[in-house]
């Protein structure tokens, strides 16, 4: 556990970067520091590994005050990832990853062997091992950066906007991989971002900081969306908070209706008889995975790929109410397509049923404010 106790950082010119920060980052969880630029989030992160010394207050790691600890030794026990990976341009991918183990005295062959394993674990081809960072794509560099931080298996990871330099699609992929990896590794992570969506997606708890370096709210993401502590937090969270909050509500309680389907390539007469007058008919492939909707009345001789309407999103039955509602709202038939984890069709849900499930869950879950002062700093 990392604990900030009344930490303050002022610079000689009088700028207050962090002001009276008290915060705990629990062991094995992701704590996200989020806020606009100038809120002291990066300064706070860098105080954990003594890149910046606090002006007053104390920071402890597992109960030990870090002010008395050797900076280099402390840092070797904390993985550090920054934007674009901060890779050493003059070292190969493999040697970049092996940096900290080598510093810690691990024999070279052993360090390289485990670096190779990490490379695979990060979903990177081992053929990249001998390349230099400038020969990698942005996403690959970022993965190598994470691998390098993990190489010495440190219990703590500090991550400073690690995914913000890549395009949105790759970012989402990296975020998903990061969550999967954290599910396996259970590191204590402090993660800095300016992107509230990223904070809400990744954080077990989210600390919203305001300019001047004060803590505006510390809460779980669902709590944050449901009950912002003040106008600043509410503004920072932005629009659609209710809808985004549904991402944390499990979708299991929605009744799933069976949906008549035909396989791609079926004759249009057969398709029309299955549809029995409905305006839209769901098409699946041979494996039973939904591929799209068609209008039976407008078919040619057979159901072709070109007939498919692809507007509808597909939700997993094990996913969230948000995904289920979006599937229902985006489908031309207004029936949301649900699949199992392997992508095979289970059935469909209506927006009405999803809303009923939301209302049913509202009383018990975090969806409604239980009390007016249930949040904020401890």
């Amino acid at each position, binding site marked *: 556990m990392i604990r900030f106790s009344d930490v303050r950082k002022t610079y000689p010119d009088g700028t207050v970067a962090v002001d009276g920060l008290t915060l705990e980052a629990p062991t094995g969880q992701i704590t996200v520091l989020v806020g606009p630029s100038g809120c002291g989030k990066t300064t706070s992160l860098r105080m954990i590994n003594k890149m910046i010394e606090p002006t007053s207050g104390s920071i402890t790691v597992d109960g030990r005050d870090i002010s008395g600890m050797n900076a280099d030794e402390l840092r070797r026990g904390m993985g550090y990832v920054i*934007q674009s990976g901060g890779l*050493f*341009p*003059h070292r190969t991918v493999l040697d970049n990853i092996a940096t900290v183990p080598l510093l810690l005295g691990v024999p070279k062959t052993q360090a390289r062997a485990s670096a190779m394993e990490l490379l695979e674990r990060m979903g990177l081809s081992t053929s990249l091992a001998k390349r230099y960072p400038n020969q990698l794509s942005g996403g690959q560099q970022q993965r190598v950066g994470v691998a390098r931080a993990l190489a010495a298996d440190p219990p703590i990871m500090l991550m400073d906007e690690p995914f913000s330099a890549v395009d949105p699609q790759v970012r989402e992929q990296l975020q998903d991989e990061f969550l999967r990896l954290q599910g396996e590794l259970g590191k204590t992570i402090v993660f800095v971002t300016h992107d509230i969506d990223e904070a809400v997606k990744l954080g077990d708890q989210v600390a919203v900081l305001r300019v001047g370096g004060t803590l505006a709210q510390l809460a779980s993401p669902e709590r944050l969306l449901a009950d912002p502590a003040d106008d600043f937090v509410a503004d920072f969270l932005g629009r659609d908070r209710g809808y985004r909050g549904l991402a944390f509500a499990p979708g299991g309680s929605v009744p799933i209706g069976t949906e008549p389907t035909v396989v791609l390539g079926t004759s249009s007469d057969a398709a029309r008889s299955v549809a029995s007058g409905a305006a839209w008919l769901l098409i699946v492939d041979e494996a039973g995975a939904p591929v799209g909707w068609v209008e039976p009345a407008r078919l040619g001789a057979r159901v072709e790929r070109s007939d498919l309407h692809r507007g509808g999103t597909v939700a997993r039955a094990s996913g969230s109410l948000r995904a289920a509602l979006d599937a229902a709202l985006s489908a031309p038939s207004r029936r949301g397509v649900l699949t199992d984890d392997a992508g095979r069709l289970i059935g469909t849900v209506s927006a009405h049923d999803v809303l009923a499930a939301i209302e049913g869950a509202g009383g018990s879950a975090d969806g409604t404010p239980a009390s007016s002062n249930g949040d904020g700093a401890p």
Partner: protein
Amino acid sequence: MTWFLDHLAQVGGLLVTHAYLAVVPLVVGLALAVPLGWLATRFPRLYTPLITASGLLYTIPSLALFVLMPLVLGLGILNPLNVIVALTLYTVALLVRTVADGLSSVPEQVRQAATAMGIGPVRRFVTVELPLAVPVIAAGLRVAAVSNVSIVSVAALIGIAQLGSLFTDGFARDFLDPIVVGIVACIVLALILDLAIVALARAVTPWLRGGRAG
């Protein structure tokens, strides 16, 4: 041409001395410029005084410095060490700025990542910052090498034998051949040194070769 062939051994000997007098200061000067350049980047307050002082050093005319050196060092006027020390000063003057600029060219993110991984300042300098500064330092070194080859020849005026002696000889005898041979030999030497530095820099910066990914 016949003069050159007749004096092959003599010209060869002068070329070797010339190369020696140009290269030794280059190596020593680089060794001195690296710590000075590091100081200039590590302590920003030192940057301006150090760069200004080294710049002024380079403006001292070489002939004056050659004449001054025996007095300062207390050596005999024909001692080649005078030339070596003087040229070392010029090399340092040229390279302090280059080294400082090379070290500043290291991306801040890389420096910070190194620090955050627990690489202490000395190790960071040797294993991260200096290697990354090589391309810039090599560019400065090429200028210094050519400049040394040219300045060494001036030492003929104070009686230190090297390719420059061919100029004084040719001038004294109003005879063009040794002058032309001397010029060509200087150019060849400068080219060889230049190519050697380029090859060396290329050998120690393998990461700058090969294609980039999109």
